[in-house]
């Protein structure tokens, strides 16, 4: 079982196993290791919530029935401080518990004892989903930074380009010569590191609203 420092490994995916039963945690950790996923076990859900870093990547495996605090309560508190996907485990599933878990934002709801393939598929899917969403976030952040480099007039020209206006139409609107507009257009492409009009529109159209 791995007990890494959460900060040094913040950028590599990590599965957080929250279950009060040592043996269950131990077994699930070994299963995860067999597919190369690193994990950290927590017997106490409150200690887990206190220690969790907002930049953590991976997913959480959460038991519903734990002494002191219900897994559903942990789920709602986790949603407030992290975007980690959650796989819920329960000893006795019923429709009501299941409904409440999904309403609380759980990604999967599995019944103990859990089949290894089903468990690993669910955890791997959750980790993949989280990494993908983090990447999308990083791309969006980089694009926003580049967008901030544009001057006021360049920003206005970019808006018209994205709307599909030609250089001539833009020149008429701002009372500029088409040549000047051509210069702004070149600056926009250079500053935004875009190679084609299609790439420009795909990356920045959503950020301009």
């Amino acid at each position, binding site marked *: 079982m791995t007990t890494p420092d959460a900060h040094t490994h913040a950028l590599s995916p990590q599965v957080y196993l929250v279950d009060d*039963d040592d*043996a*269950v945690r*131990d*077994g*699930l950790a*070994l*299963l995860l*290791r*067999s*597919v190369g996923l690193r994990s950290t076990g927590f017997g106490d859900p409150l200690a887990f919530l206190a220690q969790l870093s907002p930049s953590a990547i991976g997913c959480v495996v959460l038991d519903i*029935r734990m002494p002191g605090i219900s897994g559903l309560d942990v789920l709602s508190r986790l949603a407030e401080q992290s975007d980690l996907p959650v796989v819920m*485990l329960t*000893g*006795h599933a019923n429709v009501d518990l299941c409904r409440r878990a999904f309403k609380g934002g759980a990604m999967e709801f599995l019944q*103990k*004892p*859990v*089949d*290894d393939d089903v*468990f690993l598929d669910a955890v791997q899917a959750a980790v993949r989903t989280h990494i993908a969403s983090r990447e999308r976030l990083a791309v969006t952040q980089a694009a926003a930074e580049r967008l901030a480099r544009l001057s006021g007039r360049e920003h206005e020209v970019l808006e018209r380009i994205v709307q599909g206006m030609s250089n001539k139409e833009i020149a008429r609107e701002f009372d500029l010569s088409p040549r000047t507009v051509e210069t702004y257009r070149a600056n926009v492409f250079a500053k935004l590191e875009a190679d084609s009009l299609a790439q420009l529109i795909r990356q920045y159209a959503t950020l301009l609203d």
Partner: protein
Amino acid sequence: MNPLSRTRALFCWLILFCLGAAWIARQEYVDQYDRFFQSTSIAQRMLSQKTVQHEAVLATLAALSHPPAPERLYPSLQPALPQLLGLGYLADGAWAGSLAAPPGLSDALERARQLGRPVVLPEDPARYWLISPSSWSLLLDARQLVPAADFPPGLANLSLTVDQTSLPLLDKQPDDAPGLTMTLQKPLGAASQPFQMRSTRTLTPDAWPWTAWLAWAVASALLMAGAAAWQRSRADARRQQEQARLAAMARLSTLGEMAAGIAHELNQPLTAILAHTRAAGRLLDDDEERPAVRHALLASSEQAKRAADIISRMRALVQPSSPARREALDPDALVASLRFLREPDLARQGIRITWHNASPGARPLGDRVALEQILHNLVQNAADALADTNGPRHIQIEGRADGEEYLFTVSDTGPGIAADALPRLFAPFYTTRPQGMGLGLALCDTLAGSMDGRVAARNLAPAGACFTVSLPRSGTPA
């Protein structure tokens, strides 16, 4: 008693008191009015009698052919008629009387002759001349018609109107006395002197029925307190009964909870075993992972032992290590307690439960709690079987002695037991219900066995299932 119902009781008492007090007041008023009415009628008759007497005197005087001189007549009449102040007549056109002739005599005489009866000629509010057609006239004082002391005691104020202004005859109450005023007005009976008599009496607060009211206030408060106490004690009894029922239900349902708890307890080691063995299988081909595989196998065997421990703990709970108690049990009391627990619940499902003791006096030997548990489970099974029945819903419990045994039978009118289920019915974890644990009948069998008894099942014709619990009987050689 909570504050709300205290206020409510006070409110109820207030309403009760007001209704009673109003009734008392009404009765009192009716009584007083009756007395007042009678007294007034007596006063009216007394006054009328006097006025009629005047007419009679005048008629007698008119009939005299040689009337005596009025001055001599007056002293002889006055003692009998204290109200008579004077008299006289026209003797051959000239006035002869004990007093001077009244002014307006001739007009009045004219009127009297026209009417053919005496007429009144007032002198002042109290005194009047009564002039007959024969010209005989009497001067009368209305104040002295009846001495004040002779009026009945039920009167307060009495007045007579002789000449426009009213003349007080009795004045026992001031006019502005506070309270409820009764008034009666009647003319006097003589046609010649139809003076209006007016009688009033005010029921002042000192005449109100204070004693009766006070008595009613105390009586109604006692009544209300009694009713509240009775209601409270009834609610208490109901609550106690309900609590007793709940406590007994809780004792019997712990079995179900225990089973659910055991299921959860077993799930944990099973999860760990499954995870460890599957992980070991996945890592088996990697030489570097050999220590991890060894650890996984060790851990799974540990968890298997943990599961076995849980099961033996459960056995220890279900089968008491000490032999079951043996005591002579009263089947009637036992079934009564069972029906007390289940009847409301069953009634809600439209199920009738009856008890028939075929051998009164016979006593089964066993442990009361264990036997209660068995019967409870059998009744519960019967109720479940009846849940989907459209026909009559009836559970019949019967007790009878059979040789050296005592038999309880629990039969229902449900669909009966499927033929393939019958042989496995008492096997643990065998169930025909989706939510069932399959422990109920197995436990019944175990419990009966601990009392040297047994449970058997059969189907009834045309429909229904019948379970028989046989126990040793008290008073037979064991």
